[in-house]
């Protein structure tokens, strides 16, 4: 079975000289959900930004190979790869840039070349799926943090991607919002990559975890094993901090 994502020996250095990734190997199989764990600055977000070519596609600062659905991530394949990978950013405020919810969710499908009627239809279906069907005419800045996150996810689902990448999806969410997001993600069939510090949330969605430290993968395995190995659990039964 061909993996959806295959990364080999990925290295990346920012312009200021900071080494963010130092030889990362990774794979994601169809239908799989993987949590990326690790301290702030360990390279998780830099890593996921390579998956759809937001970093590294121009060859600057990076080495190694990234393949998505068998296609190398380079300038030639960017449009096709961005159809395959939907990325939900940490701060939904930055992702919701259109004046109304419906227009924002339709932004991706319109960029795929769909006509306005089909894009609207897809946007409405995606909003319905995340429970925001009644918010089409609302302005994004009138939404709560949980609603913004749902609309941001709808904006990605409307593009019908095969892989979802979510960067710190529980940031700014209260416990009910967090629970409702977990329910939503559990019911989505796409393969998922979750960048998170929230291990209990990760446990509810993912089966495998990859632990990043100093730009390298320190461990990969079942989420329970990885969390125990690095003392990354914040629940009462676990330890309070990473090592």
């Amino acid at each position, binding site marked *: 079975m061909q993996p959806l994502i295959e990364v080999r020996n990925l290295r990346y250095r920012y312009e200021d000289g900071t080494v963010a990734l130092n030889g990362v190997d990774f794979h994601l199989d169809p239908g799989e959900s993987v949590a990326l764990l690790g301290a702030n600055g360990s390279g998780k977000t830099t890593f996921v*930004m390579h998956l*759809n070519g*937001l970093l590294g596609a121009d060859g600057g600062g990076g080495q190694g190979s990234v393949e998505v659905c068998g296609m190398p991530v380079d300038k030639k394949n960017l*449009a096709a790869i*961005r*159809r395959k*990978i*939907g*990325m939900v*950013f940490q*701060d939904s*405020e*930055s*992702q919701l*840039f*259109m*004046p*109304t919810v*419906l*227009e924002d969710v*339709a*932004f*991706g499908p*319109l*960029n*795929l070349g769909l006509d*306005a009627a089909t*894009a*609207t239809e897809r*946007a409405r279906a995606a909003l319905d799926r995340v429970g925001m069907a009644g918010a089409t*005419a609302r*302005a*994004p*800045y009138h939404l709560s943090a949980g609603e913004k996150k749902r609309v941001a996810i709808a*904006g*990605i689902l409307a*593009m019908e991607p095969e892989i979802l990448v979510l960067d710190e999806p529980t940031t700014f969410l209260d416990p009910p919002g967090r629970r409702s997001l977990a329910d939503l993600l559990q019911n989505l069939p796409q393969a998922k990559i979750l960048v998170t510090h929230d291990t209990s949330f990760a446990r509810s969605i993912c089966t495998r975890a990859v632990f990043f430290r100093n730009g390298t993968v320190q461990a990969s395995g079942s989420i329970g094993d990885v969390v125990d190995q690095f003392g990354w659990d914040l629940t009462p039964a676990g330890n309070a901090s990473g090592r």
Partner: protein
Amino acid sequence: MHHVVLERWSRRSSPMHRSDPRAKIVDLLVFLVVLATAHRGLPLIAAALGALLCCAIVWSRLPLGGALARAAVVLPFSLAFAAVCWLAGDPARGVHLAVKSYLSALAVLLVVSTTPLPILLRGLEALGAPRFLLMVAQFLYRYLFVISEEAQHMAKAAQSRGATAAGMLARAARFQAAAGALAVLFARSYGRAAEIHRAMLARGFQGHFETVATLRFRKADLALAIAGSLGPVALRFALERCC
């Protein structure tokens, strides 16, 4: 904030709200040219054009007092220039400047308050306005609120550490600190812009902005465009002949 109120007004229902934005933009341009180029008999012409605007505001089911008050936002700027004219020995020019700028602002406010922003931008685009400028306007409108909130948070953080607005300006060191805070706000806005750009790229943006808003120019819109253009022109010619 002003733009939140205007947006709420723009979502109301009236014949003016339902009109095609192109008809309203053409009317607005004609109105502005008629007003800006009027000299002879200006007090009478300004009064007549002001009355015309008030009728249009009432017809659009907008609160007249609120609209008149909000248009006064330009007065601090135009009154400053009017004061310069006064000091230069040309008080009539100063009064003309203040009156023209106020009525122009009222006319713009009428169009903005009866046309949701995406539709207005679509209308401007259809009339040949540069896409890039429209995109900048759209982002400015969307993120003004967010940047203002960030500024308020920073102000609160400064106040919680004993800073006051008067104190910030009173001493050189504190003034430097206030200037530094502005620089931080600028850097945050820049960071926000970079994030938004990444989010757009991740959803397939390739430099061309598509929206789902579609326009239909009906007979009623043609009638509005003609009546709204001829009205101010006829008023001005009639009043100039009287003077």
